């Protein structure tokens, strides 16, 4: 690649001795990784994200209950208090009490302190498929019935919020992967073709892109979601991915087009064509790889937007539908002011969205700093 600093071309300004020494033998990726590691907050944020995504992968095992398991006697159940000390103040095995409804109208529960229910680990419960493949029925923790363990309370149908958050995380977190694939592939192809051929093709393609961009994105999003209203809940998730993909490619394609427009003037394009490459192959194999650092940066910066968009749509009831959970649709049950003030634990999924988006933003910041082309050309280590 032309920008590799290990082999400066004869015409390039001399690299300061110290910097050259430091950079000798490192690939561009290794350099970027070194700079990324120096961004402490981005490193911490990556750890947070790894934990969150790992939890999402193992969610059926980590969650004590299944996604749809509801307990009609326990709706708006408050967070179960977990006791680490017995009534004499001695440290014991953690246990919980069963709760009893004392006020039917306001749904107030009280612990029944006669029997203790110790928290058991690796208990057998409802069966599930780990990774969608392996049939298993062991859960990380649980308690014997009739007691229940709801560390963050229950919702309006008596479903454990922690379990639903864990199950929902698979949708809310992993939606970004298909979205990245869609946005990058459409954006690269569209921008690549438009910028490469230029002229009338470019003109028409860019006008179409502008139409998509001229509609406020969220308006377009809810209008498209309205079209997919009749899609059954099982396929809803795929529909949400399709809608978000349709809305988000245009801006990205436009920047790629601008980059391709200037790249195609360079000699290597002529060279690629001269040795008999087709136009398409020249675009895909020779031109587009040059946009890689922009693509990586821009996609990482778009991820928080994807997560917020999914949760917003689900929050409005236009995304993932009941009985399936996503962080957004769990929050929509808290829009009722009475529910919100009486049962504030219903807000818990919002904090997860917030933490995830924050972490992605920090990672995006780190990635941008690491791949900033100016940092490479100016040769000053950060």
């Amino acid at each position, binding site marked *: 690649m032309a920008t590799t600093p290990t082999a400066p071309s004869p015409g390039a300004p001399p690299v300061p001795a110290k910097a050259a020494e430091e950079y000798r033998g490192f690939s561009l990726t290794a350099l970027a990784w070194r700079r990324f590691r120096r961004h402490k907050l981005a490193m911490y944020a990556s750890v947070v994200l790894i934990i969150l995504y790992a939890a999402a992968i193992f969610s059926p095992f980590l969650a004590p209950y299944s996604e749809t398991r509801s307990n009609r006697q326990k709706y708006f159940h408050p967070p179960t208090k977990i006791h680490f000390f017995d009534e004499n103040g001695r440290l014991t095995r953690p246990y919980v009490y069963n709760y009893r409804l004392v006020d039917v109208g306001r749904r107030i529960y009280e612990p029944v302190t006669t029997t203790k229910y110790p928290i058991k680990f690796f208990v057998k419960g409802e069966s599930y498929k780990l990774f969608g493949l392996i049939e298993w029925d062991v859960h990380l923790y649980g308690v014997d019935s009739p007691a229940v363990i709801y560390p963050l309370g229950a919702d309006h149908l008596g479903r454990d919020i922690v379990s639903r958050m864990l199950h929902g995380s698979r949708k809310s977190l992993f939606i970004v992967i298909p979205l990245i694939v869609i946005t990058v592939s459409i954006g690269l192809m569209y921008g690549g073709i438009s910028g490469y051929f230029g002229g009338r093709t470019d003109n028409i393609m860019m*006008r*179409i892109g*502008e*139409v*998509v961009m*001229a*509609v*406020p*994105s*969220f*308006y*377009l999003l*809810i*209008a*498209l*979601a*309205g*079209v997919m*209203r*009749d899609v059954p809940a099982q396929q809803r998730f795929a529909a949400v991915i399709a809608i978000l993909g349709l809305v988000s490619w245009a801006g990205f394609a436009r920047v790629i087009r601008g980059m391709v427009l200037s790249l195609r003037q360079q000699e290597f394009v002529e060279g690629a064509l001269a040795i008999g490459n087709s136009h398409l192959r020249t675009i895909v194999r020779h031109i587009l790889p040059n946009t890689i650092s922009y693509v990586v940066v821009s996609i990482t910066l778009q991820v*928080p937007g994807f997560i*917020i968009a999914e*949760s*917003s749509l689900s*929050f*409005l009831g236009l995304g993932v539908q009941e009985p399936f959970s996503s962080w957004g649709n769990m*929050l929509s049950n*808290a*829009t009722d*002011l009475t529910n*919100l*003030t009486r049962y*504030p634990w219903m*807000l818990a999924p*919002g904090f997860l*969205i*917030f933490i995830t*988006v*924050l972490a992605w*933003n*920090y990672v995006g910041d780190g990635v941008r700093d690491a791949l900033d082309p100016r940092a490479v050309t100016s040769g000053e280590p950060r």
Partner: protein
Amino acid sequence: MHAFILRRLLNMIPLLIGISFLSFSIMYMAPGDFLGELRLNPQISAETIEMMRAQYGLDKPFIVQYWLWFKEAFPMPGNWKINLGRSFQYHTPVTTLIGFYAFNTFLLSLTSAVLSWLIAIPIGIYAARKQYSFGDKVLTTLAFMGVSIPNFFLALIILYFVVRWELPLPIGGATSLGYDELNLWQKIVDRAHHLIIPTLVLTTGSTAGLMRYMRSNLLDTLRQDYVRTARAKGLSERVVVYKHALRNAINPLITFFGFEIASLLSGATLTEFVTSYPGLGRLLYGGLRANDYHLVLGGLMVGSVMLMLGNLIADIMLAWADPRIRYQ
């Protein structure tokens, strides 16, 4: 400059036609019959439905339907009136309805935009000048949190505290019940009162984004050679920062204004939804739920026009602020 504005306005015409085609196609694909809602309504006779059916040409192919809607919606010689059809839900012309709701959204977005500029720019300047100081670190962290918190979640949290602490703030609506009897001053106060919660929600995110942008721009500018030159020739720090660096750092922010309008309009939808503020986004959402296609179409069109005008204003402001920019 006038020629530039005129050209931009003329450019909007094909764009609007494109948007109308896109929006119409989306609505055409939507499930459910166009008049299904009306048939269920006992107040509307079968003749009326047949009449509307003929009027909108619903038995005709897609392109004819589009043309019938289009020639009403776009002002043309001989028919300058904009007619976006009638809302099935409210039984009023869509233009009247949207005018009312779009004004509310406009008011909300404008207040938030102005407020966030007033807050974000001084904070951004401070953070850039005191880079890596304690204050800078606190502000940048807060800004990061501000851009990361989803609008609707922030709105829920604020509502929670408003109810919990029994703050005397109106929840929901843009005006009080007796709004029409108030005099002008009372009307303004009443509106402002209702704007507090939604504005607070909307301003947080946009202030945070703007402040981060301001900070990094100013930091970039302060590293430029001409700033070094200005310092070298002995200008006071105040002149260097505010006269030489700041003016150059603010220009990109004006372009940002266009994007901000887009994000404010989108963010406003959710905020309106949570705080029950009667704005365009909520109208659109309600229309979608009720199969009110003309309303949704109109909403998409008006939203797009607001966005395009916002971008145009941003370009004009940029030309006004930056003498280097010349539009032919």
